[in-house]
């Protein structure tokens, strides 16, 4: 157990393929998998006072839901295949947060699924995968 792989999970088909691929690699190389789900969030947004007062409760809910509904089942199935798994939920800018997490957990590489957005959509909204590739401190494997 010498290396750690970070896998970006978002519940999409692409992310399912990335998990599957990363699991195979992990089992072959005896690596540990860290499943990460990033809730898109900006500290520079504007809210009403009422929203601020409720924010803490909302955040706990969001994390709880992501841990149990989204990451939980994935982690179970990966564990069943025999790999060691950890799950993390974090708020923030998706690509930036994934890159930061890679450093934090000491991952040797990141696995991320490709969404297959059209070029126009990627141009307009930016692609998480593309910006992760640009900013990541470790190699990124993009799973088609």
């Amino acid at each position: 157990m010498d290396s750690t792989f970070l896998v970006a999970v978002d519940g999409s088909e692409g992310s399912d393929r990335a998990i599957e691929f990363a699991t195979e690699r992990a089992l072959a190389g005896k690596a540990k998998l860290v499943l990460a789900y990033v809730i898109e969030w900006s500290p520079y947004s504007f809210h009403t006072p009422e929203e601020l007062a409720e924010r803490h409760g909302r955040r706990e809910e969001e994390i709880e839901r992501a841990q149990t509904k989204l990451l939980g089942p994935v982690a179970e199935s990966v564990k069943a295949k025999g790999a060691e798994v950890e799950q993390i939920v974090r708020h923030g800018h998706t690509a930036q947060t994934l890159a930061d997490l890679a450093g934090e957990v000491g991952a040797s590489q990141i696995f991320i699924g490709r969404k297959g957005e059209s070029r126009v959509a990627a141009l307009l909204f930016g692609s998480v995968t593309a910006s992760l590739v640009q900013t990541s401190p470790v190699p990124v494997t993009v799973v088609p």
Partner: protein
Amino acid sequence: MKRLLTSIFVFPMLSLPAYAQGIDETINSATAPIAKFIGQVVFFKIPVGEADLPLVVLWLVVGAVFFTFYMGFVNIRGFKHAIELVRGDYSDPKSAGEVSHFQALATAVSGTVGIGNIGGVAVAVTVGGPGATFWLIVAGFLGMSTKFVECTLGVKYRTENPDGSVSGGPMYYLDKGFAERGMAGFGKFMGTFYAIGIFIGALGIGNMFQSNQAFVQFVNVTGGAADSWFADKGWLFGTVMALVVGAVIIGGIKSIAKVTEKVVPFMAVFYCVFALIVIFMNYDAIPQAIANIFTGAWSPEGVVGGALGALIIGFQRAVFSNEAGIGSASIAHSAVRTNEPVTEGFVSLLEPFIDTIVICTITALVIGTAQVAEPGFALVGVQGIAMTSAAFEREISWFPIPLAFAALLFAFSTMISWSYYGLKGWSYLFGESLKMDRLYKLIFCIFVALGSMVQLGPILDISDALVFLIAVPNILGLYFLAPIVKREMDSYFSRIKSGEIRKFKQA
């Protein structure tokens, strides 16, 4: 409750048009004596020379001066750190998703940046001359310390509700802070006093004044007091405004509030940019206008009470605009989760800076340069926001329209924020029940409508008087609790120095 709501709003609408002509007048003449009475009783003035020094101004200024010295000029010492905090340099990425310093500041600022920044400054300059601007800035500077104290306490003594939401603000820190010092009974009394003050006060400063000035500017751009079809239909404007506010706070239509919250900061920037453009279009007048501010501060001409008169009016409008000492912002700031309540204090001291030292001064310069460029400009019959609007119009003829739009949004966002502040006071008193909640919001909406119907003078009297009501228990409490804040601040500063508190982000 729903039927009551319908009948209150719909019934007058059905019966009003027939008497529309006289409605505004009737309401005006009915409220004027009440306002005058409240003004005289609560808003007690001490004659100083020729000028009248309202007790509330003295109360707030003495407090602000005291806190500035007691905290060792935290408004200067903490300024750079405040900006670093807002930028997120000290935020732990693990706690991302909680209310950030920036968000708390933005929310509190959009609650304070209101009509006061546009119309209130014009009132100050009309009554106190250009020199009032100088005192306005001084008051803003001192107010930063008061904000620091009250927002630190707001976070330190907030209450976490079982549903995960938080309730904070002066009623809670007065209550718990005094209990900690072994004066539980007194704390309870002060908390209750404040809660009553803020829920009634919310109806003035955060409500009637806003709706009144938004209406004035609306009439202004639709043809002026003489020609506008709306000129004598404050009741109509007020009712529509009340319905929209009601849709948000009673109907729970969050999207309107969300849009407003997002647009207001941009409006503020937009306002400042255009104000700077107008100031520079009068560039010949800039040196004289600035000189007038300084000379007027010490030896004003034609101002009742001389320098003291200018000082009083400047301080009064500053307090009214940045709300330092009123404790309202501390309610918004208390939502931030931090292990160091002082950090929120630092962040909040940027508020009077943005609100008063930046935005109010810019407005004052717009009017000031216009007055220098055109002596005798807008001196007759124009007051409040109409005067600011006229100063803009001299240079950019179409500007009154976006200004009216901005005023409407500022008024609206301030009303939304204040409805929440008032509600927090109300629910501190009556508990968090849905029925009482609705009742308060209904009262709030009725006052929105009333605000458009009465004249500026009485509204200012009532609002100022109510501010006093809120400031008395708050500042009194702050004196007692300031040592706690000072201790936290000193410990925080020393831990920054020793490197125990470090930035998370590396450059």
